């Protein structure tokens, strides 16, 4: 298991993970503190320590980005150890939709406006400050990654996942060939880089055609990789479109693979789901609408869409009433229960006349929220149980990400 935040996050005593996000201040430094400190007001000492750490982190970051810039200019940079943030590298033929994905996911561009995007001519990077700071870069097609004169090191050495964007509405055979070259190159030189394939622009295609092309691409790439001796290398394939939620779900799965805390979070969510009869639980990064973890039950895009829209609603309301007000941000039912560790942002909305099934949202911190699709049998009279268990989950998550 590769680690990004720290080397041994799963070990009993995790070392502090660097958190460049200033809002990470909201995490209490320990569980004992968590009970006393309001999440908005952490102790001064803690702040001091965090600020210090933050500065270090930022320095490291700027260093990295400088290196990246140098790399773009063709200078050879020394090996830089991959730092805390998941870094994604988009690749693919021109006009395959790399910039669109980047803009839509990380910069909240309206999907319809992506029509007017210009060709990308140089490596463009984007970052998004949220619970997890995502760094994404786009490698324009004419900068061939496999060319010997290309500065692979600067580009790939700190990349977490390389995403090949394949335009399924175009002639994709050439793209597949290039993709296989790149995949083989990465497998040979940078085996730690995850290779993901977005079979993109699937909107507007018929179901049969979608399935056929999806199957064909997967089979073809797998066969070719096997022939080249990299059959054991796992490549993930996603059908994506910027016009629906599929791109977000695909990005979520890509990002999840880069999170070392994923098994821990997943186990926590599994426990919560089985205890509280929750159908599906997501841990959402509120800003990006990417979920960093979910429970192990089968995922349906429908569930994700509902939850994602709900997160949107919550974020919108928070935009109106302010991020730091820790009062309830609910829409249908909003309560702020006073527990001993301060105010909790939580809300519920039901979309069912009987009220049996509803969505329960609870903020873990400002940038991370737990969204649960509740099933039958977890009606509101069981709220005490749910609240208690979610509280436990809350604390456990804080421990997982303990600073």
């Amino acid at each position: 298991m590769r680690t990004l935040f720290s080397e041994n996050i799963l070990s009993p005593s995790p070392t502090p993970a660097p958190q460049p996000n200033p809002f990470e201040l909201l995490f209490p430094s320990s569980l004992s503190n968590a009970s006393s400190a309001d999440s908005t007001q952490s102790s001064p000492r803690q702040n001091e320590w965090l600020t210090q750490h933050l500065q270090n982190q930022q320095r490291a970051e700027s260093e990295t980005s400088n290196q990246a810039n140098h790399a773009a200019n063709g200078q050879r940079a020394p090996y830089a150890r991959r730092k805390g943030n998941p870094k994604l590298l988009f690749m693919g033929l021109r006009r395959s939709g790399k910039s669109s994905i980047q803009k839509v996911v990380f910069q909240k561009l309206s999907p319809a406006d992506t029509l007017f995007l210009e060709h990308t001519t140089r490596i463009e990077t984007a970052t998004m400050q949220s619970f997890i700071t995502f760094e994404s870069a786009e490698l324009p097609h004419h900068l061939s990654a496999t060319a010997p004169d290309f500065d692979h090191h600067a580009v790939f050495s700190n990349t977490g996942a390389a995403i090949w964007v394949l335009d399924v509405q175009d002639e994709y055979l050439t793209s597949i060939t290039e993709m296989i070259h790149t995949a083989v190159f990465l497998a040979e030189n940078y085996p730690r880089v995850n290779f993901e394939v977005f079979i993109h622009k699937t909107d507007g295609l018929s179901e049969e055609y979608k399935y056929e092309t999806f199957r064909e691409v997967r089979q073809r790439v797998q066969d070719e990789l096997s022939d080249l001796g990299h059959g054991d290398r796992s490549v993930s394939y996603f059908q994506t479109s910027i016009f629906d939620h599929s791109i977000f779900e695909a990005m979520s799965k890509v990002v999840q693979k880069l999170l070392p805390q994923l098994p821990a979070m997943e186990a926590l969510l599994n426990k919560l789901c089985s205890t509280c009869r929750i159908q599906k639980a997501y841990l959402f990064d509120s800003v990006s609408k990417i979920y960093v973890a979910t429970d192990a039950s089968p995922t349906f895009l429908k569930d994700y869409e509902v939850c994602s829209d709900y997160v949107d609603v919550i974020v919108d309301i928070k935009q109106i009433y302010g991020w730091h007000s820790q009062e309830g941000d609910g829409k249908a039912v909003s309560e702020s229960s006073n527990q001993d560790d301060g105010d909790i942002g939580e809300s519920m909305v039901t979309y069912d006349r009987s009220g049996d099934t509803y969505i329960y949202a609870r903020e873990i911190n400002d940038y991370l929220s737990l969204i649960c699709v509740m099933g039958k049998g977890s009606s509101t009279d069981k709220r005490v149980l749910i609240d208690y268990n979610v509280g436990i989950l809350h604390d456990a998550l804080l421990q997982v990400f303990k600073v």
Partner: protein
Amino acid sequence: MSNEGSRRQSSVSTAPPASIPNPPPLPAAPKPLQRARDAAFRFIGYPSRPASPQVEVNGRRIGQGSGGTARYASLSATQNATATHKTGLEIKTIAINEKGTHALLGGKEIFKTVKIEGKLCVEEVNLRTAIRSTPNQASGKPRSTYNIDIADVAWAKGDCGDYVAAATSSGRIILYDLGHAGIPAAQLHEHLRQVHKVTFNPHRGNYLLSGSQDGTVRLWDLRDVRQQASALQSKRKYSGQNDGVRDVKWSPTDGVDFAFGTDSGWIQRWDIRNLKAPKIRVPAHTLSCNIIDWHPDGKHIASASSDKFVRVWDFSHSDKQTSRWEIKTPYPVMNARWRPSCESSMPQDNGARQCTQLVTAYDREHPVIHVWDLRRPALPFREMTPYDSAPTDLLWHSQDLLWTVGREGTFLQADIQHAPKVIDRRSLSSFAISPEGEISFVAQKRRLRRSPKLHHPAAQTPNTNNSLSVSPETTFLSRSWADDSLDRTFLSVTSSKRHAMSKFNPSSIAITNEGVLCAVVPLNNIMDDKRSSVPQQVMITGRMPYHMDPDVFRFLAAKYVKTVALTATVDDKLLQAVQDAFKKNEKYANYAGLYLLSGTWDITRFVTLTMLKRRAEAQRKKDKNSDKQIVKRVNKPTLAELALSFLAEQEQSSVLSPASILPVSILTQHLGVPESTSNVPTPLARPVNSAKTSASQEIAKLPDIDNSEDLTLPPSLSPIMHHKLPDRSFFDSQLTADNLNSLQDTDRTDMVRRWSTQPKTLLSLDPVDTEGSKIPPKLQKHDSEESFAFMVGSTGSSVPASVASAGPMVSERPSRRIPAIGEPSDDAAAEYGGIEAARSDGDAAGSPPLTDEPVPVGQAKALPAAGASPPHEVGHEPLYSLPDDSQEDLEAGKPWVLVELLAELLKHHLKTGDAQTATHLLTLVEPLLPHTHPLPDAEIEATVFTYTETYAAMGFMPDEIASIFDKHLQHTVMAGLQPLQIESILSFYHDQLMSFRLFDEAAYLRKLAYPAYTAVYEDFTEDNTIHLKCGACGKPMVKGMATLTCESCHEKQVPCPICWLKESPYGGGKLMSVCMVCGHAGHAGCLQHWFEEDGEEECLTGCGCVCKS
């Protein structure tokens, strides 16, 4: 959950205990009774450790004769073996022991074994209680876990048959020895994430496979438990996945192979000896593959996924794969299992076993369970809904018994023979009609359904019998091993095959094959033998009766003359044109072999020409004494004024008008209005509004828009106008109660029928007929035949023609008699004489016919026709209709009044759906009709209101609306045709043309219909664009002149074939010109040079088109 498909093929066996191979079978005595009785004892015992699946399969047969008979009563056809065991705790998973006697239930708060004997379910070992009561682990350390959240359980086989494995969501697998229930025998903790499935090898029961969310499958050996209980290491690890393994199953035939399905939809086949790479790797699904299951033949595998497909793959070779068969399920599939194999019904299989069915369960919201048969994958074979939510896990105990567990905490043993068949709830016949008039019809015979009465052993009707297995013993004892999907309804064996049924007595086959080693027929053998079992259906395809032959339809649509050019006056030229048009149509109908239709055209031509000649005559007379023209005009509003007043009114009270919101509903709403006009106060119906009466009373002239200074709104109408809207809204509420259907159903084609069956429409006529008080003054004032006709109406037996002709659409009103064409010809000879006379005279004032009734009419008609001097109005109206020069009914008294004839013809042709003839009759005759038979006032008003609304909704300006009414509808209404009916006829014909892809004719029809009949053209007014056509590929070039490069073939286009330049060297700049015939274009200047100065006539591209002409 282990893969026990092959084991459970052998569902009846009393083999000796484990680890001893089956003894050689005694040849079972083929006593039918005993065999059948034994057939019921399926769930007794299994050979616990078969040497091979084949032997195991054999074991079923072998064991039949010998054991277990003392323990169970016979399970007959009508007996329902359904059994339940309620726990009240959510059960997540179920496993079965090798013998099939016990079930192991696992869940978050439950972990126990249940013994099932017949219909009895008894809890045996409660592992959870034992765990909780035991404080120490096997190693002596204190117990660390209080709760184990079980995701899957499996029951070991063979030597290790006492062991059970429980997979937990934490990634730990805990082994328990049922003999020492409380203490975990071992904890296998190598998976980092949740373990989804555990399964034991069916051949070597100590091998355990576990598939986990962390993307690995691990192999464990239970024999190691005794040596190293504390730290059991996995033997092998199979990875190469980066997504979770949802299901893993051992191959039923090959002891070293297994397969698994992953979260991203891959399924893979591995050999446990090869750690590197899978044997086969198939991207089976687009979404998560939730379950896989090997077919008992060991070659095929079914995979089921969230993407609502169950696909069956051939895993025997590693070629590039596509699924062999697939089932499209209605919901995301969460669970799927092959049904244990049953005896093949094919004689050539010699009683071997086959398996074509599988059961599927869906996601949480869809509690139904379906049993599918691959031989008929389009619909489920059986379905059942055991719980409120979907079952969490299921497995087959034996061929008929399905074990399911659910969130409700109930373990259910369901007898699948008692689950209802889906096909019994379906209609077995269906038909469809193509636009070209072909009909396809599929039907199937439904077997007489005698559902067995449960718990009544007396009713020994077998539920499932096929033609092959009907024999005395199977009727008595139901559960044959045969394929229960083979009944006549769902699938049936076609017996007229190369294996003559007469040679093989099926029951004797079954008997003689007792003890013969019978393997599972590979699935592809069954499926490829398409003829073996098919649904027996009958299909009929053919032409529909009473439907137009498509060729004839196309021919007539292309050939028929649609309109004639109208002239201002009725002169010889017009007469000639009309005659030619009708004659042509007659000729084409004759060509098409429609002699009756050509006769219709002939008669219509005759009547029309007669009428026109009469009008010409009257016109000539009128010209002579035009000085006597009467100046006074009628106080009747034109339709345009009516419409304008509606509009104005609407503006004032737009809130009150519900119709203004929804233009679609307008038509139907106001179709219903006349129905409720009986509630309207009588002033509406005052005879002074009647066009005929008022016209002939005051002056014999309709007002013209050009002379509208004379026009005033009649005082009788204006109060009605003001009452109208509140009234209408009131009626609307009534209407919803009355005929909700007609409000909701806005199908235009349907309108024709509804219109003609409108029970009562015209109020204005009712008072005329009933209120005698209104009539006498008319009689005194009138000298025209209308008044006389009214008198006849009030006195005579039949409705006078003039009254009935007021509304052709209302002719089917029950209260009135239908003025049919044939009516006057009751006394045909006399009338025919009358016609002859009229024709010979060429004068309307023909010689009086001889019969009693028409006589006074004819006389009455003759007098005013000669005496009255109708005003002559020429040239003011645009030529959408023949200028009506006469307010006199020149046809009155004639046996055939044109408008009535037309109405009858329409009615006749519409009855047979022949909108083509109806349309052409309308378009030809309608402009020529005289204004003598206007619609009743209430109907006019309703129609005008409707059309006003529609036009307003279409976005016409008020003055445009007025002019539409003036030019188009005024004439139609005055001629006595209901525009709504015409509109629906035209749009129906238009639809027909479009479905026949006769676009030119449809376009022409739209042109005719514009702008009056919105329904015809409203879908075609937008999105019409003209593009340049690429010369190379013929596709449109959307970008136009800017690039001149075809988007589809990237061919560069030449701007102008003459100069090849951007701008013409002959002047004229970039202006282009196109030949509308061949479509070739060029610069206008160049073309001019080409055609004018060079004197060329043909197209310069050499296409042969003589463009200049």
